[in-house]
């Protein structure tokens, strides 16, 4: 197992370097001169040179990249082009917290609902209750979040207009603001996790050791919980990685349409203001976070399933 972890860790620097380099180079080739934009109508050469120097833009590209990388190692994402030299960290800091809370809540909700639903459906394969649960799950997986959001908002509005208790349509602050975004974010992951759980349980149910367990007269709940579920849930750990990809793309849409001041919302704002360092910062934070999450998932899986250690 140690060898697997060491090998994964050894590949990490390459991926991290490439991800940061790609993000840097896209910003480096960004069209237009950010310093001229910053100076507005002023064309003072001294100010221009000073600003250029302040942002390190007077250096050759490899120095710029090394500076950028050095900053990243200290958790420093550089300076904003838009807000008079404010660090990107300041601008994104609160957004990271909001997005992280929202994303994790959605992930937990989709696991808490998706696993039981998938397992229950598999135990009653091809029955009416199986279909009744899995068809909506397929629909949740297929319907894009930006279609689900207006549907929820419309339902919410109908409730509101009849004087029933309703949720705020958008915004951020109280717990009521969480409900709809979490539903939408959890939906895609929910469809994915429940379908995967169902497939796994069906696969495990065919195994010899399940037949043996039944054959030796174990009570049904022991067979189900100890032999079927515990084995079927192992691979579900691996879906946490792909689910995070859903959550990241979902976060942009959900934060935008619900006006939630998360990292996605802030970087779309930065797009409109052409504040490239903020967009780069978002990209680096999210990509590095996902690289680490995938690493943790892989290690966890090796730890949970001894068979992977042999082949891995």
């Amino acid at each position, binding site marked *: 197992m140690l060898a697997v972890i060491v090998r994964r860790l050894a590949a990490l620097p390459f991926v991290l370097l490439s991800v940061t380099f790609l993000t840097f180079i896209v910003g480096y080739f960004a069209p237009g001169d950010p310093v001229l934009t910053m100076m507005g109508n002023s064309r003072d050469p001294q100010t221009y040179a000073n600003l250029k120097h302040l942002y390190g833009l007077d250096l050759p590209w490899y120095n710029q990249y090394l500076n950028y990388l050095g900053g990243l190692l200290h958790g420093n994402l550089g300076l904003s082009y838009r807000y008079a030299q404010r660090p990107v960290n300041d601008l994104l800091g609160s957004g990271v917290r909001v997005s992280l809370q929202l994303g994790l809540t959605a992930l937990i909700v989709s696991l808490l609902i998706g696993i039981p639903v998938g397992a229950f459906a598999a135990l009653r394969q091809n029955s009416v209750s199986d279909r009744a649960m899995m068809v909506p799950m397929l629909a949740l997986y297929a319907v*894009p979040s930006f279609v689900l959001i207006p549907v929820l908002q419309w339902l919410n509005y109908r409730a509101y207009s009849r004087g029933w208790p309703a949720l705020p349509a958008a915004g951020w602050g109280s717990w009521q603001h969480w409900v709809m975004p979490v539903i939408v974010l959890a939906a895609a992951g929910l469809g994915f996790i429940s379908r995967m759980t169902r497939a796994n349980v069906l696969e495990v149910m065919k195994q010899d050791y399940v037949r043996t367990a039944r054959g030796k007269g174990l009570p049904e709940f022991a067979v189900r919980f100890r032999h079927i579920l515990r084995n079927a849930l192992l691979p579900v750990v691996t879906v946490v990685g792909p689910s995070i990809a859903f959550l990241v793309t979902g976060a942009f849409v959900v934060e935008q*349409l619900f006006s939630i001041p998360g990292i996605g919302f802030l970087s779309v704002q930065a797009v409109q203001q052409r504040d490239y360092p903020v967009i780069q910062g978002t990209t680096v934070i999210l990509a590095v976070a996902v690289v680490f999450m995938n690493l943790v998932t892989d290690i966890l899986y090796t730890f949970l399933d001894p068979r992977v250690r042999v082949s891995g």
Partner: protein
Amino acid sequence: MAANVSALADRLDADSLDGLTTSEAMGPWRLFWRRFRTNKIAVVGLVVLILLILTAIFGPSLIATNPNKLDYAAINAKPSAVHPFGTDNLGRDTLARLVYGLRVSLTVAAYVTVLDLLLGVPLGLAAGYFGGKVDIAVTRVGDVLFAFPGLLLAILVAAIFGQAMTDRFGGIGRLMLVVGALSLVSWPMMARLVRSQTLTIRERDFITAANAIGAGNTTIVRRHVFPQLLGLIVTTSTLGIAAVIVNEAVLSLLGLGIQPPDPSLGKMITDAIPYLEMNGLQVLIPSATLVIIVLAVSFVGDGLRDAFDPGSIS
């Protein structure tokens, strides 16, 4: 000896006549179509898809209304004879915008699919067939692009180059940027799938046989490997179209795709959401269109997979 051989040939003939007469007589494409036809949902999906494509191609010339024309006399109007699907918050005709938006979505999907085929297929094939350095290079590039979750890389590229492309090349430049950004996140998947399939095909006996009789790499790839990949490629690119259409809508929704006033399905949804309470139809129509395209494409993709590979039907 000669008698033996002809007896064997007779037996083989008899065998094939027993089980496979119809298949042998029909040729692969007719057989393929026959298998595809048995999947009713896939056929319905195909019909819907063809209708949508025809609408996107011919619709704009059939509809006289300008999709960007403002009609202040009819703002957020309900469906009427003049505006069959009503109008949006600026009084623009929803039917006209829908048809033009459909054209944008399908155009982007078509270009991204072509790029996937031009980049993902050859690179995946080369990586899987030749292995070694080529494989390492292609796999590494793919790994790096995969490290960016979801649409993140497409968002970054579209955000940074969007304005300049629009300034320099107008709407077409923007469209091409969207295509490029989206294919950046989709070709690695095609390459990865083609690579792993090629790896298994390479080990098969008929490749060894072709090698043994002295066939060159070009011949082997063209005659023996590629035909085996066709099913995977067609299925993957069909299912990929659904993802591209959703992704294009997400970019438009974030303000990174097609620029206003030109319509796109994603933009129509976002523009209409603030007026949901007054005019829910304006959200419903583009949303339903999107869901219908995605479902139709998925059904066709599933049908193609089953028709290409009868063994996969469970």
